[in-house]
C-alpha cells in the first residue's frame, strides 16, 4: 500500500471548504485511473480525455453533495460512467444504451506489448474484450483493472450486486475460452 501524507478524505474536506489546491492534488491522484477507465469503455483517446476533464469539473461543482468522503472513488466513477453514457446517447440517441459499442474511430487504444507480455497476448486480450457486451466489458474494467468491490460497482453502475456478478462472471467465462489458446502458448 502506498503511504500518503494526506488522505483523500482530508483533501476532500479541504476542497469542500474552498481549498482549490487540495482539489488539484486530488485530480492529480485520480486523473490517470479515471482516464484509463473511460478509455477502456469508449476506446477513444480524445473522448476519454474530454470526458475526464468534464468528470473532474463536475465533481468539483458537486463536491458538497458528497455526504461521505470515504465513498469518493465510487462517487467519482459514477460521474464518469454517467458522462460516458450521456455522450453515447447524444451520439446515437435512437440506440438502446445496452447495445452501444465503443466508437470505432481508428484512434484505437495502444496495446501494451512489453518485455513481460508479448504483443500477441495484448492483441488477443483487446480482441476478446471487444467481443464482450458493453456492460460485461465495463464490469471487467471496474473489477479487474480498477479493483472495485462488488458493492462499489453496484453503486457506480446503479444496479444490484447480483447483476454485477452475473455480468462479470459471464464475461470471465467468455474471456477464459477466448484466451485459453493464447494462455496455453504464451504463459504456461
Amino acid at each position, binding site marked *: 500500500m502506498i503511504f500518503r501524507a494526506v488522505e483523500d478524505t482530508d483533501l476532500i474536506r479541504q476542497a469542500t471548504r474552498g481549498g*482549490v489546491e487540495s482539489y*488539484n492534488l486530488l485530480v492529480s491522484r485520480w486523473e*490517470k485511473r479515471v482516464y484509463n477507465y473511460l478509455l477502456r469503455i469508449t476506446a477513444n483517446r480524445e473522448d476519454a480525455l474530454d470526458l475526464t476533464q468534464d468528470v473532474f469539473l463536475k465533481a468539483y461543482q458537486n463536491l458538497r453533495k458528497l455526504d461521505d468522503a470515504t465513498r469518493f472513488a465510487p462517487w467519482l466513477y459514477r460521474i464518469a460512467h454517467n458522462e460516458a453514457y450521456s455522450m453515447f446517447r447524444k451520439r446515437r440517441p435512437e440506440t438502446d444504451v445496452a447495445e452501444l459499442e465503443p466508437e470505432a474511430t481508428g484512434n484505437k*487504444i495502444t496495446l501494451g506489448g512489453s518485455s513481460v507480455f508479448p504483443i500477441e497476448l495484448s492483441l488477443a486480450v483487446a480482441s476478446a474484450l471487444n467481443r464482450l457486451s458493453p456492460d460485461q466489458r465495463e464490469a471487467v474494467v471496474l473489477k479487474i483493472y480498477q479493483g472495485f468491490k*462488488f458493492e462499489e460497482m453496484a453503486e457506480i453502475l446503479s444496479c444490484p450486486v447480483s447483476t454485477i456478478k452475473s455480468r462479470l462472471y459471464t464475461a470471465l467465462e467468455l474471456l477464459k475460452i477466448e484466451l485459453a489458446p493464447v494462455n496455453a502458448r504464451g*504463459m504456461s
Partner: protein
Amino acid sequence: MSCPPFDLRDYFFKELPNPRQREVEAHVKSCQVCREELDRLQLTEAALFSLRDEEIPQRIAFVSDKVFEPSPWRRGWAAFWGSSARLGFASAAMLSVALLVSPLVSQLVRPAPVGHVSGVPKASSVVAHVSDADIQTRIDNAVAKAIAEVDARQTRKVAQLVADLRNERTKMLVAAAEYDWSQKRANGLRISASAYQMPRIGAGEVK
C-alpha cells in the same frame, strides 16, 4: 465450475467474508477440480493485465488554472463587488451621507421664510425625526436591494464564465485536432520518404 456451496470466483476476487474465505482456501488445497479452475482464473486475469494503463496524454486542467480564471478586469470587479457585506456597508454609508446632506443642501438652496409660521417644525427636528425610524428602514431596504443586485450580478457572471470556458474548450479541441492532423501528415510523409529508394549506380548495373 466449483464445488457447491462455494463460489470459487467470489473467493478469487476476495469478496467472501473472512471465515468463508479461509474455508474455501482449505477446500481448494484438497480439491483438484477447484485448484484447476482457480489456475484458469489466475491465467485469465494475468492475460488481461497484459493491457497496461496508458499515461494520460495531457494533464487535466486544474480548477485554479488560467483557463478557469476570469479576466483581470473581472477579477478586479469581483474583488470590489464580490462581498455582499462590503457592498451593503458601502451602500448604507452612502445612503446615510445622502440623508444627512440633502436637508442641509435643500435648506441652503431654498429662500428663507419671510415670517415666522407657527406649527412648522425646525429643520433640525425634521432631521432628527427622519434619522430615528426612516433611515433604518431605508438602509435596510437599500442593503436588501444591493444584496439582491449583487446576487443577480454574480449569477450573470457565473453564466458568462461558463460560456467563456466552453468557448476556450472548443478552441482547445480545434487546436488539438489540427495538431493531430499535422502529426498524421508528418508521419505519412516520413513513411513515404523511408519507402522511397534512391537509384543505385553500381559497377555491374546496366545503364
